[in-house]
């Protein structure tokens, strides 16, 4: 399953989904979540999802179903506007709140400390962005995000090159 999470003001995800269908993708094989208008809080760093209600975020808003879909997806694509060359705060909030997918327990993996994951399956991560994104930095960040999950980066693509991203989804 390919999951696209679109936080862009211009709903870029719609175009990507259309492109995917044109390329012959099975409509049952992907899902687009457009978060504009949804109520998604930032992570408040309470640590409850590790130490009080393991695996469950105490913030009750529209995020929980997104998290569950991320956990089960093979690919998660963050479709984001950019500020300071980086993803928007809306996209960062979505990533900051993945903490229920990891546990409090620690481990060393490839020479670095990592959290022990809560579930066996981990998604790969990719980014499609609008605006003046810092391509090299976004690649580094996406790679580090994937490293924390023990998965892979799918790559980072400006929205103009959406077709290239789509080819990675098929």
């Amino acid at each position, binding site marked *: 399953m390919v999951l696209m999470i679109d936080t862009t003001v211009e709903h870029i995800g719609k175009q990507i989904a259309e492109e995917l269908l044109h390329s012959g993708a099975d409509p049952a094989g992907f899902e687009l979540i457009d978060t504009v208008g949804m109520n998604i809080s930032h992570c408040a*760093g309470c640590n409850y999802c590790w*130490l009080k209600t393991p695996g469950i975020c105490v913030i009750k808003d529209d995020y929980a179903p997104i998290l*569950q879909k991320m956990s089960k997806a093979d690919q998660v694509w963050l479709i984001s506007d950019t500020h300071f*060359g980086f993803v928007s705060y809306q996209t960062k909030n979505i990533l900051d709140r993945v903490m229920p997918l990891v546990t409090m*327990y620690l481990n060393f993996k490839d020479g670095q400390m990592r959290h022990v994951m*809560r579930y066996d399956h981990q998604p790969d991560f990719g980014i499609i962005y609008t605006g003046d994104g810092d391509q090299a930095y976004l690649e580094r960040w996406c790679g580090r995000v994937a490293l924390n999950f023990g998965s892979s980066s799918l790559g980072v693509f400006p929205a103009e090159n959406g077709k290239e991203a789509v080819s990675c989804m098929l």
Partner: protein
Amino acid sequence: MHVVIINGSPRVQKYSNTEKIIDSFAKGLSEKGASFERHAISDRKSWETIRDAYIKNEEILIAIPLYVECIPGLLLEFLETLPKKNEHTRISFLLQSGFAEGCQLRCGEEFLTKLPEYLGVRYGGCLVKGDNFGIRLFNEEKQEQLTKPYQAMGELFAEGDGFFREEAKKFTGPEYFSLPVRLIMQFAFKTLAKKMFQKVAASWGCTVPLDKKIWETESG
């Protein structure tokens, strides 16, 4: 020197590790005769006041907990509301994390080295150190002991060179742990640390295993 210190953590101040680190750092500033004022972005109602302080002052320090390899979403949102300033303003960063090794914070640090240019201001360096997750779990006395090293960094900062001095760079500690250290720590993770986390969880009212699976995943 008058420093505007902004706690960039979204966590409520009472439980903020970053807040405890600032306590110690600020002691160091006072020790060397620098004055400071403190703010925290966790309460949105204070954003107007913080913005004002940012606009009116030229020595800014943002203390930040690492959130998913970069700065927290809430801090990004706050930064988007700041007006552009010029090179007379210097912005420095104190980046801290739970993971202990320096290598864990470098991706976040890179973002912070580039951020001042977007804001139009001068970069004053970034103090990088991990291994701070546990601060909130201890009593006041132990908290002071854990954050004590930051006092010397406050003293250093008051001398005016931001975080560019060798002492600030060394403050990070090891970039990676050596294999023997990793083996010892790995053993501790599976025994002592695990028990300690379970104990903390129980004291917070948790009654289920910390690695409980909430929903079943399809095999992947």
